[in-house]
């Protein structure tokens, strides 16, 4: 089977993004603030994994699929790994301890981004819904905690940085909530279920009522 150009492009893009994040100056700049480590660096590392998933050969994804019914395995793996990197002490350690830094750079793409990208298309409507709602809840919970905590949770970061991050998390949580609410009210349900095979209607007029 020949490798499609799109895959090669994805692979190169991933490698470049990863190398850029690995560059000491970029790493240092993003880790200087709690906000950028959590909201820029780690998400970009996750993105590396997501793009990487597109470059996997079909036979590899086929084998993974055999162990990833409805994307459950990938969801569990990505969730557990995300939980780990949500521990405030790990944000500190990822900067001060090179071993933990290596673990972050390896696990965010391979254990969060990659499994998520491979699992999302296989997840059912309910699983997706639960994941998204839990995402929103986590953003709100962490955001609120960071905003009201009078103590610094990371030794490396200032309190106002932490509160700033809290505001951002609430903002992102709110935006995600609005987007999903919009989708639920005006969107097409079947497009969420991934089962939509029918051709898209030429005009998207009034919302179609689910039969």
């Amino acid at each position, binding site marked *: 089977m020949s490798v499609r150009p799109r895959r090669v492009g994805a692979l190169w893009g991933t490698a470049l993004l990863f190398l850029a994040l690995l560059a000491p100056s970029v790493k240092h700049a993003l880790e200087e603030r709690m906000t950028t480590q959590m909201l820029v660096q780690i998400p970009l590392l996750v993105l590396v994994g997501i793009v990487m998933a597109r470059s996997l050969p079909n036979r590899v994804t086929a084998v993974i699929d055999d162990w990833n019914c409805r994307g*459950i395995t990938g969801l569990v793996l990505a969730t557990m790994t995300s939980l780990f990197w949500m521990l405030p*002490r790990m944000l500190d350690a990822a900067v001060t301890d090179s071993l933990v830094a290596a673990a972050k750079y390896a696990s965010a793409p391979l254990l969060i981004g990659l499994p998520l990208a491979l699992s999302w298309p296989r997840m059912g409507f309910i699983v997706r819904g639960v994941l998204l709602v839990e995402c929103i809840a986590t953003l709100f919970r962490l955001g609120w905690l960071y905003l009201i905590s009078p103590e610094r949770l990371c030794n490396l970061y200032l309190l106002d940085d932490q509160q700033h991050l809290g505001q951002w998390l609430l903002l992102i949580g709110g935006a995600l909530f609005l987007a999903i609410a919009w989708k639920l009210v005006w969107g097409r349900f079947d497009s969420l279920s991934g089962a939509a095979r029918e051709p898209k209607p030429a005009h998207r007029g009034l919302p179609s009522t689910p039969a």
Partner: protein
Amino acid sequence: MRLLRTLFVSIALLLVGGVVLYAATDGLRAFTSEAARRIAVRQHSVEVPAVTLETQTGAHIDITSLRGKWLLIDFIYTRCPTYCVALGSEFAQLQDRLAGSVREDAVELLSISFDPAHDTPRALASYLTRAKSRGAGWVAARPVDSGGLDELERAFGITVIPDGLGGYTHNAAIHVVDRQGRLVEIVDPGQAGAAMRRILQKPGP
């Protein structure tokens, strides 16, 4: 079959993940570095490195020469408007409450500056005066070289970051060092009683 395999791997991942998270939080006790530092020291005491300090009188002492008595150590910088003021008044209270042990030369309070460039012996002396030190049993000092400061910060787990206003933000605590020169306990500021109990538990010979 596919569902069963998925179930099997998922449960295995949940178990492994649970164990990893349990270990990474010291048994769900430490979610922050600060809590982790306290637990780590309680489990494995840390030898205080031999570092030369200059005290508020200008005298040079090696920190290991203080072995034989309990040390209560805090890390400060004298321009600090927040934590160090609170720590200073707490040390002053400790100085009073431990006056007996201080007279027996069994305890010493030591405030170490992590801003040696600014904290000259004179600045240190004025810090002690402002904190209402009674004199005996409380020494303020700065490491004489930056290598010594690094060693101390590493051994004690002190993180100092510029606060963007010309000062510093740092993790404040009272560090208890036993007679053998080992850091055995770290307590929160405001819990000086706990540090005192630790010392008085093992009265001098």
